[in-house]
């Protein structure tokens, strides 16, 4: 057998070793190093597949010829490093760089990262105008009017996602022509609900006309209060006036006072001031955003919604520009139930557990119902919320000694002594069920309808937890059978071992498959099993670097040794979600701060979240890209 090319998860120590052994000649300028030493290696070994024409795997190296271009391609180098170190790229059938050439590439990647981290580039990144996504829109209507979000959310089609994979990325929030009709319909639906429910109606119409309050004053009070959080700042007269006019005209056409207010609210809910997230511009290279703009960034990040009155009060009083004032608000907002949105929308998309809402396991073979679906989702939501806002550590995602269960779910998992319908934190005595890898929602969404998929589970660990996605398989490779009753070899495992016999499969599958084998005790709906087709499952795995483990508990110990990668990936994901854009080279100083915050606070969420809220990209804005210098 061919010796494995490198570790499954390249060890940091190896990189450090290489760096100390092989320093790039200091005399050469950065420009010369790139042009004379690094670029020729890329040209020789990589460009064939990754030129502007083929762009295999979506990677175009030809666009990186100049040093500033190359420096900016931060994410690409992370991938390149991972795949070089693990021997996945270049593919086995292509010419391979020798060890010294590989080291030149790796050293340059590390040098570039140090360069970017040094803070020579001060760039908050681009923040484009975008609309509220459907989740934010529905949540905002809930917060403004009290209507149930699900009533509103389903008016709109599922949205795609971009950047690091979140649906709040402005680039992918299009406004198709049908949108206005949907906004109008959603506003109407919401208002019908409000006016049908006395308590909601009373909340909106808190200051109706009265002997001491003429109708015009009543309208002004009502709309000013409702529109302030919707438009995310205190309305100047010229913004408020058209809505007052609209209400007055409606009354003049024979409507009641309520009719007038209702129409004005409807107009506000269709207004670009509500639907579109815009920020003011200045001529400076970069500038801090205004208080209300920062308040909006905060409420979208932590609540997936618009700000409330206390937040706007603080913003308009200038308190958010003060670090203590900002911290006070972040603390208050996280303590508020609205911050469950962070678990629902950030963790739900990052860990992909929200996908369980659309999962379709074969119910004739596996124990799955509408109730199971809800329980699996509820467990993942509570677990994530506990890590983000409760007492948990984010490291518990890799392994935890507790789970969030109720009686029905505990029975599903075979865990005794949990009674009653309420979810609660249940201590675990072994290392099997804890962490995200024990969540039924994750185990279900990484399975096929009729069998588990060690490959998908391994891929999930590499992509979602560690941020090191494997490249796509070449075409024409096929997949193995999908129904575990029809496997001709005794086990899926033996079917999958075919991967290791093929050159074009081995490099990546040697990393993915063993991780999945260790989770084979979990069936396609997350239940525990010892056997499959009357065979005792073999849940042992060996990684390319020789590390060996058996079963989920030992796998989690291996993952816990990958804290650095996990921290980087977590920082990338949460920062991207907070900013609503993909991560760029200019974010590296911020990422470094976030990573060290994680390491020094034992992966507590609050310091991480606060650090993001204080960061340059979160608090600043620019229009023109900041150029990356060569030296």
């Amino acid at each position: 057998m061919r010796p494995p090319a490198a570790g499954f998860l390249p060890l940091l120590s190896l990189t450090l070793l290489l760096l100390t052994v092989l320093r790039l000649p200091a005399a050469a300028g950065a420009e010369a190093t790139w042009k004379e030493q690094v670029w020729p290696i890329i040209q020789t070994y990589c460009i064939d597949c990754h030129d502007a024409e083929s762009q295999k795997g979506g990677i175009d190296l030809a666009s990186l010829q100049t040093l500033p271009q190359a420096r900016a391609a931060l994410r690409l180098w992370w991938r390149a490093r991972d795949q070089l170190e693990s021997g996945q790229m270049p593919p086995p059938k292509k010419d391979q760089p020798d060890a010294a050439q590989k080291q030149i590439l790796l050293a340059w990647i590390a040098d570039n990262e140090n360069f970017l981290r040094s803070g020579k580039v001060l760039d908050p990144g681009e923040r484009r105008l975008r609309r509220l996504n459907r989740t934010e829109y529905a949540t905002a209507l809930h917060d403004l009017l009290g209507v149930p979000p699900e009533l509103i959310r389903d008016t709109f089609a599922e949205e795609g996602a971009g950047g690091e994979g979140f649906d709040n990325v402005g680039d992918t929030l299009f406004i198709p022509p049908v949108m206005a009709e949907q906004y109008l319909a959603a506003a109407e639906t919401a208002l019908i609900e409000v006016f049908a429910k006395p308590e909601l109606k009373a909340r909106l119409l808190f200051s109706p006309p009265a002997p001491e309050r003429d109708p015009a004053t009543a309208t002004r009070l009502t709309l000013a209060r409702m529109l302030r959080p919707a438009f995310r700042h205190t309305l100047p007269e010229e913004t408020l006036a058209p809505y007052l006019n609209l209400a007055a005209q409606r009354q003049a056409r024979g409507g009641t006072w309520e009719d007038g207010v209702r129409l004005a609210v409807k107009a506000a809910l269709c207004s670009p001031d509500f639907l579109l997230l815009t920020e003011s511009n200045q001529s400076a290279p970069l500038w801090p955003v205004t208080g209300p703009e920062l308040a909006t960034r905060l409420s979208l990040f932590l609540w997936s919604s618009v700000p409330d009155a206390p937040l706007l009060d603080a913003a308009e009083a200038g308190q958010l520009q003060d670090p203590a004032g900002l911290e006070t608000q972040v603390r208050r907002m996280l303590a508020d139930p609205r911050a469950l949105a962070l678990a629902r929308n950030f963790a739900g998309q990052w860990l992909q557990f929200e996908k369980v809402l659309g999962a379709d396991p074969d119910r004739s073979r596996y124990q799955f119902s509408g109730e199971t679906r809800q329980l699996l989702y509820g467990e993942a939501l509570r677990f994530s919320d506990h890590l983000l806002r409760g007492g948990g550590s984010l490291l518990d995602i890799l392994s935890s000694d507790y789970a969030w269960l109720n009686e029905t779910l505990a029975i599903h998992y075979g865990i005794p002594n949990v009674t009653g319908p309420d979810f609660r934190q249940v201590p675990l005595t072994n290392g099997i069920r804890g962490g995200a890898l024990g969540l039924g929602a994750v185990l279900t969404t990484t399975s096929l309808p009729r069998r588990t998929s060690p490959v998908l589970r391994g891929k999930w660990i590499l992509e979602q937890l560690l941020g090191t996605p494997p490249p796509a398989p070449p075409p024409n490779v096929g997949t193995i059978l999908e129904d575990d009753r029809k496997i001709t070899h005794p086990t899926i495992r033996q079917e999958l071992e075919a991967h290791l016999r093929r050159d074009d499969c081995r490099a990546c599958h040697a990393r993915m498959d063993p991780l999945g084998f260790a989770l084979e005790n979990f069936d396609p709906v997350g239940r525990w099993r010892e056997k499959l087709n009357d065979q005792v499952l073999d849940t042992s795995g060996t990684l390319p670097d020789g590390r060996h483990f058996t079963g989920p508990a030992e796998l989690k110990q291996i993952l816990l040794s990958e804290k650095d990668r996990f921290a980087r990936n977590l920082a990338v994901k949460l920062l991207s979600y907070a900013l609503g854009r993909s991560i760029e080279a200019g974010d590296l100083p911020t990422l470094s701060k976030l990573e060290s915050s994680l390491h020094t606070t034992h992966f507590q969420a609050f310091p991480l979240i606060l650090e993001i809220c204080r960061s340059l990209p979160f608090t600043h804005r620019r229009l023109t890209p900041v150029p990356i210098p060569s030296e």
Partner: protein
Amino acid sequence: MKAPSTTRRTILRGIGTSITLPFLESLAPRARAATGPATPPTRMAFLFMPNGVHPDRWTPEGTGQDWKASPLLAPLENHRQDLTILSHLQNALADGGDGHYAKSASWLTGFRVRKTTGRDVDVGGPSLDQAYAAQVGHLTRLPSLELGIEPVRKGVDLQVNFTQLYGGHISWRDRHVPLPAEINPRTAFDRLFRERGENDRQTAEDTRSVLDLTLTQAKTLRGKVSQEDQRRLDEYLETIRALETRIQADIARVASGENLDPSLKPELDRLRNRITAFEAAKDPGGQTRLDHTEHARLMLDLIAMAFWADNTRAATFMFGVDVSSKNFSFLPGVSESHHESSHHSDKAEKLEQYARINLWHVEQYAYLLDRLKSMKEGEGSVLDHSMILFGSSLRNGNAHQWKNLPLVLAGRGGNLKPAGHLIQPENTPLCNLYLNLLQRSGLPLERFGDSTAGLSGLG
């Protein structure tokens, strides 16, 4: 003849009674004025099947009208006089990058798709249906209709650096703006056929005042944002205008007469009842879990009814998003999900399942043709005035082939002459077909996508 003048007052009165009106000769003053006897309008629908086909079971034997149905085309036997099965068309600019996403996004556009994880989504140009809708969309209640039965996949495919939204959209308003497919039959039904809630003059005026205010604000805002952001704001302005246009279209239709085809009402009631029954099967707490076949058929019925009522003339339908892993085990003998079955490695058992899944798609297409054929219009049927293309952006899914795509065209809209099995020279651009369809629908185009010439052989 002078067009009857429409005052603002009649417009506003009209909105309330805007209900669906089938295309009847008596209701076609515009067409009659122009051409003498009324000609029913031409409709176009494009039905997308993800993940390709079993390549050995698709192509029929024989050429022209003498074709002998292949196993996968067997469900279309009843419609053989209305069909053209197209061989050797290809979408060459979809090559490269990744196996799926670029190919589905460019299926109806024929341009190269920009590789991106989301920034600067770009498919090169509008899709075929939208090119047609740009020409005729203002004449109907909805300029175009986009339907599907599977939600768009969220996220980015990190293996190939593509946003998965490309795989979920075949309809593109322009090179940057995808049109999402509605998967909820109730919502689609309401958009197409609901008698508007605003059924009095007052409500119509309310709606107009809301739109007026919104439009004013958006224009003011436009002056304040960066050039980059103006594009997004223009999309917003466009959607407001689209709604105004739709309201106008409703008004124009009502102004043109009050006749309601008596056969339409019971059909609509039946469809509404089926949707209600279908919704009752919803899985608590989850996204809808429903009978997949019924779901597909409801959406296809909506297209058929929309065409019959002349509520729209351009429609797209996605049987699934690309790389769909839909569980097809509801079919006898199938245990695989869709995408996985398409990577069959030439194993007999997997190919068999792949073919059965393909066959299901062809059966649903046949269902739509049955429906359109049963809808009388003028001397013939709605199918006689339609172009209904069914196909995939891949041939053999296992190899992600983009040559010799599986495609069937049905109907006689725009004087199409069904040609049976029409074999083109190898490597003929798919866009040559599209150019032909657009030209015969009255668009004075010389080029579409990567077309080299209009396809010949379609009469």
